């Protein structure tokens, strides 16, 4: 009987260390909190910037909800209606789309800099795990939101992604080989991508994921406030500044500049203009699939390897990377910041290569020209 008690005590001790609620007071969080100043200080603004873009999406998403119809017959028409006839509808929609891309961009850079700065070291494991979950949720937001306009690229890209999920079952051992097919059916809700899928994605995008996100974000932000900013560099920083008011003020300026930049982009460049127009025609189940269907740019890191390498190889790589993402605080516990920075730079180079030059790499490797 003594073992479970010991285990429970250890768990409570672990959680107390990670969430020291005794520090949750005005003096500690507002008056005494300091932010180290060093060559990587700019990275401290990335979390706040990600939160800012997330909030923009919440607000614009609520506006879009007033007009959006989550049915296969009306979804595309309602999006057209928002864009063409609702006052400032195109700006709101553009803000939502641009903010989603900006959020994922900041989220990824935030994760990479946090990794390089070893900001996951004990007792910050929960902060890292919360961030890793937010990264997954961010991609889930992107994936579910992509289907909602029910245009050609949305439906076809979703079909390809769900097909890939099902195919992964072929590489799993007997008993669990059917699991991906089962998951696909749950997500899809029917034999093909249709109304049931749209309803599920809509529910996920506007209710389930935001609720999860608020929960995880709450724990993430609370942990950051309780532990303060991580040191970030090997040598003790010689300078620091007060979180309140000086860091907050700088954060405010960054948010203001980000808002201005986002707004200018939203009124000047429709996000869809980066893609060929046939992709945005209403989905026609009986029509031909347009050429060049691709997922959103932030999925290129997985999409192009899937096009180039054998499926099993990419799935294995992605599984290892996924596991490493969540086990980082324990796997890299004793790794130096120098090595972590090199690993983060390699990862950055990979992401840049696949996002910007993925198509060119694919054409060179496969010897094809689009």
């Amino acid at each position, binding site marked *: 009987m003594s073992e479970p008690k010991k285990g429970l005590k250890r768990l409570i001790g672990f959680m107390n260390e990670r969430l020291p609620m005794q520090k949750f007071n005005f003096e500690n969080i507002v008056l005494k909190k300091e932010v180290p100043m060093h060559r990587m200080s700019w990275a401290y603004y990335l979390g706040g910037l990600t939160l800012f873009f997330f909030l923009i999406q919440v607000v614009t998403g609520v506006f879009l909800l007033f007009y959006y119809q989550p049915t296969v017959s009306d979804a595309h028409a309602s999006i057209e209606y928002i864009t063409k006839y609702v006052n400032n509808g195109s700006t709101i929609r553009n803000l939502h789309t641009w903010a989603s891309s900006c959020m994922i961009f900041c989220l990824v850079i935030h994760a990479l800099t946090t990794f390089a700065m070893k900001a996951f070291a004990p007792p910050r494991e929960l902060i890292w795990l919360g961030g890793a979950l937010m990264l997954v949720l961010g991609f889930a937001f992107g994936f579910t939101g992509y289907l909602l306009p029910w245009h050609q690229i949305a439906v076809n890209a979703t079909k390809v992604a769900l097909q890939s999920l099902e195919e992964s079952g072929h590489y799993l051992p007997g008993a669990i080989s059917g699991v991906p097919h089962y998951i696909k059916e749950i997500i899809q809700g029917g034999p093909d991508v249709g109304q049931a899928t749209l309803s599920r994605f809509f529910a996920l995008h506007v209710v389930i994921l935001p609720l999860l996100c608020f929960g995880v974000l709450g724990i993430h932000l609370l942990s950051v406030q309780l532990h303060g900013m991580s040191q970030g560099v090997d040598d003790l920083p010689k300078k620091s500044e007060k979180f309140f008011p000086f860091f907050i003020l700088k954060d405010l300026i960054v948010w203001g500049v980000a808002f*201005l930049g986002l707004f200018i982009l939203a009124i*000047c460049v429709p996000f869809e203009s980066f893609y060929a127009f046939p992709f945005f025609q209403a989905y026609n189940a009986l029509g031909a699939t347009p050429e060049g269907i691709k997922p959103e740019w932030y999925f290129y890191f997985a999409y192009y390897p899937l096009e180039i390498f054998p499926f099993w190889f990419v799935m294995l790589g992605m599984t290892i990377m996924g596991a490493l993402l969540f086990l980082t605080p324990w796997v890299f516990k004793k790794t130096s910041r120098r090595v972590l920075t090199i690993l983060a730079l390699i990862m950055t180079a990979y992401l840049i290569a696949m996002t910007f030059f993925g198509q060119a790499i694919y054409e060179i490797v496969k010897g094809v020209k689009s």
Partner: protein
Amino acid sequence: MRYLFSLVVLTLFLSCPAFAHPEFLQYFKKESGRAINCAMCHVNPEGPEGEKPGQIGSLDATGKKMLELARKAKPGDNVVNPILNPFGNEILNTIGHDKLVELEKDPGKISTLLSKTSDLDHDGIPDYQELLDGTDPLNPYDGLPWKLFFINFTRNWFQIMLLSLATISGIYGLYFTILWFSARTKDEFK
């Protein structure tokens, strides 16, 4: 005999090759490097042949009459071809049907014959340019991103200036509110 003749004429009419010009599609797709489809000029994205809305098979008697007239269109005419969208009709009315058929051998020339000022979607990019760019001339939200950026920036410069002023004022106000609050809290916790 009259009915038989009508039946033969109708059969011939329906079995005629559709008024489709895949040469143009292939040419502008290659030139622009963008995936385009028949919706550039046609009502139906799958082109003119078939029974679906906007395709020849779906036309009623009036529609077929309009189609017949469109096949005789001369430059400067004002015909409406029911299987073409407003941009397709603009091309037809600008250069005429015969010239259009002739241009199948030299598809690139079509953009030189179109009006340099016509802009059906009012996005600031002329229709002939959208044809060359492979973007939708009927959708104001479709165009090459950098072109749309400069055009919309110029069009909305006043709103952008107001927004910049509002952002700067907002930051300025909040900045000093936070500083004031900070000073007060310091006094309180002394």
